[in-house]
């Protein structure tokens, strides 16, 4: 059983919703990333999503774009990324998900990249520009290696398409809460809650549904938890804390923030 699946099973037996926390690897430094991860674990995050920067992140809003650029400018390479992952793995068994863009995998071939990721300790992949139509080779490679393929669904994804995506997805489904890029803060729309309901119905309990994009406060978390989400995903809010915190205080501040959010999922 994959670490992600095992985690969701544990949470289900405790009637808890998963808190998935995103940070950008190498932003602003490798040291800061390690501190942030420790803070997330300490604060009770259930799954950690590590971003690997891409030069052209079309699905990301200003906060994560900035973090990507800074990370790349700081010299983050795939080799450093995997060494960060290995360091985390020495300290923790927490499920780790890698979020990046298709070209990063394509460049090395799906099979080669995914096996390296697996070896380093990554459990699942999120590629926001990997459409289901183009995913055959990617999903095949991931299955072969035992890597979860986490697909995005949107409030405007139609029923048949949703079914098709669910067939190829493993780990969890990542439901994009808003029409927009990451980190855009708005009120919680009715269309999002409707979409969550429909996605849950389509998933038939076979795969957990997480909600992300624009989820940043305790109130947001609470709302999605009470609306039946199996997981809530918080990203840009963590990046903002890291942006405004000296490296030696990142662990504590991230832990404090994460703890507050996690409390709303119990």
């Amino acid at each position, binding site marked *: 059983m994959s670490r992600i699946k095992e985690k969701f099973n544990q949470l289900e037996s405790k009637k808890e919703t998963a808190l998935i926390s995103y940070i950008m690897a190498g932003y602003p430094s490798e040291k800061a990333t390690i501190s942030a991860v420790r803070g997330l674990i300490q604060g009770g995050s259930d799954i950690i999503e590590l971003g690997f920067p*891409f*030069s*052209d*992140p*079309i*699905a990301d*809003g*200003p906060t994560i*774009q900035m973090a990507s*650029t800074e990370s*790349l400018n700081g010299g983050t*390479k*795939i080799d450093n990324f995997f060494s960060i992952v290995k360091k985390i793995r020495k300290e923790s068994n927490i499920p780790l998900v890698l979020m990046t*863009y*298709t*070209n*990063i*995998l*394509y*460049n*090395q071939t799906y099979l080669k990249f995914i096996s390296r990721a697996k070896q380093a300790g990554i459990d699942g992949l999120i590629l*926001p*520009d*990997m*459409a*289901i*139509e*183009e995913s055959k080779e990617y999903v095949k490679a991931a299955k072969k290696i035992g890597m979860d393929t986490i*697909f*995005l*669904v*949107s409030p*405007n*994804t*139609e029923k048949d*398409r949703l079914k098709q*995506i669910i067939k190829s997805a493993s780990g969890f489904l990542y439901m*994009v809460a808003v*029409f*927009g*890029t990451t980190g*855009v803060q708005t009120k919680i729309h009715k269309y999002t809650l409707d979409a969550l309901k429909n996605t849950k119905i389509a998933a038939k309990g076979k795969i957990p549904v997480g909600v992300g994009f624009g989820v940043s406060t305790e109130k947001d978390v609470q709302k999605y938890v009470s609306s039946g989400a199996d997981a809530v995903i918080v990203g840009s809010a963590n990046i903002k804390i890291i942006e405004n915190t000296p490296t030696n205080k990142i662990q504590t501040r991230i832990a404090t923030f994460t703890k507050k959010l996690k409390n709303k999922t119990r």
Partner: protein
Amino acid sequence: MKIGIPKDGRFGEFGGKYIPETLAPAIEELEKNYLQIRNDKNFKKELGRLLIDYAGRPTPIYFAKNLTKTIGGAKIYLKREDLLHGGAHKINNTLGQALLAKRMGKKRIIAETGAGQHGVATAMACASLGLKAEIYMGYVDTLRQKQNVFRMELLGAKVHAVKSGSKTLKDAINEAMRDWITNVDSTYYLLGSAVGPHPYPLMVRDFQAVIGVEIKKQMKKIPNAVIACVGGGSNAIGTFYPLIDTNAKIIGIEAGGKGVKTKLHSAPLTAGKKGVLHGMMTYLMQDNDGQISKTHSISAGLDYPGVGPEHAYLKDENRVEYKAVTDDEVIDAFLILTRTEGIIPALESAHAIAHAIKISKKMKKTESIVVTLSGRGDKDIDIVKEYLAKNVKNKRKI
């Protein structure tokens, strides 16, 4: 080898639709609507009328007698897209897509632009069809193409200067895509080159194919060679596509910048590697990690790390030869054409001229070359002036 409607949006292995899920319904809707109007007589009639009365089609084929004499080789003909309304081939596509957008009931149009030619052509088409236009342009490009920024504004478009990434064309596309993701219901994304997710490469090619169709009609016999510049590759694919099944030698010219052996160029077909960007699989300039490289070209319109998937396919099929010329060669060609023919070409188009000059020398005088002069060079005169001031050794200095 000639692909009409690409199956699954693929030209061979290239193309596809690598898009965020939020765009999937919009792309599907676009594809459905486009395939419907593609064969719609009324649509064709309406667009045809606009191309004639508004844009100024057909454009002439001009025998560049003086240039030919100066070079002393094959006869060089120019397909005068520079004479179109707005001064570039871009209007062929913007009228087509704006008309489609209107039929789809979309009121807000967004577009990206490099040199500003596509932005201007979008602003014109939108003004004439009563649509609202917002244009994304890299901050660096807004500085080097100030005149076009003001033209767009005069035409009623809102121009957003994009300050993310390398602040050029690719970042303008990123930002336009983010806008589209955010306003997917109300907004039509009017892409200007033969790039992006399916059906854009198909659509842009179809709307630009009028160039090649006219060349075939206007030339008494099929030319020995056909040349066009390639950034994203819209004027080139429009020129090439109708000539693919003839025996003409077809050559696409990329921006060699300071040389393809340096990193300062925009020539993915000549020196790139396969990858995925902006919704398509194609040749890209990228580093060993798959990060997209910074590009360089003296012409903002060619300053792009990718290329339309149909070009990638035609390269791998060996049907089209892709070469690069350097900034220096481009300036030289710009000056030669200006002096000998009294035609100031866009720096983009001057790439194609530069290669025509190179090969015509080696061809027989009875042979012919058609060069697509994709745009006029008024927008570039400041860049040329600055270049000449810095490179006083240029033998054709003023």
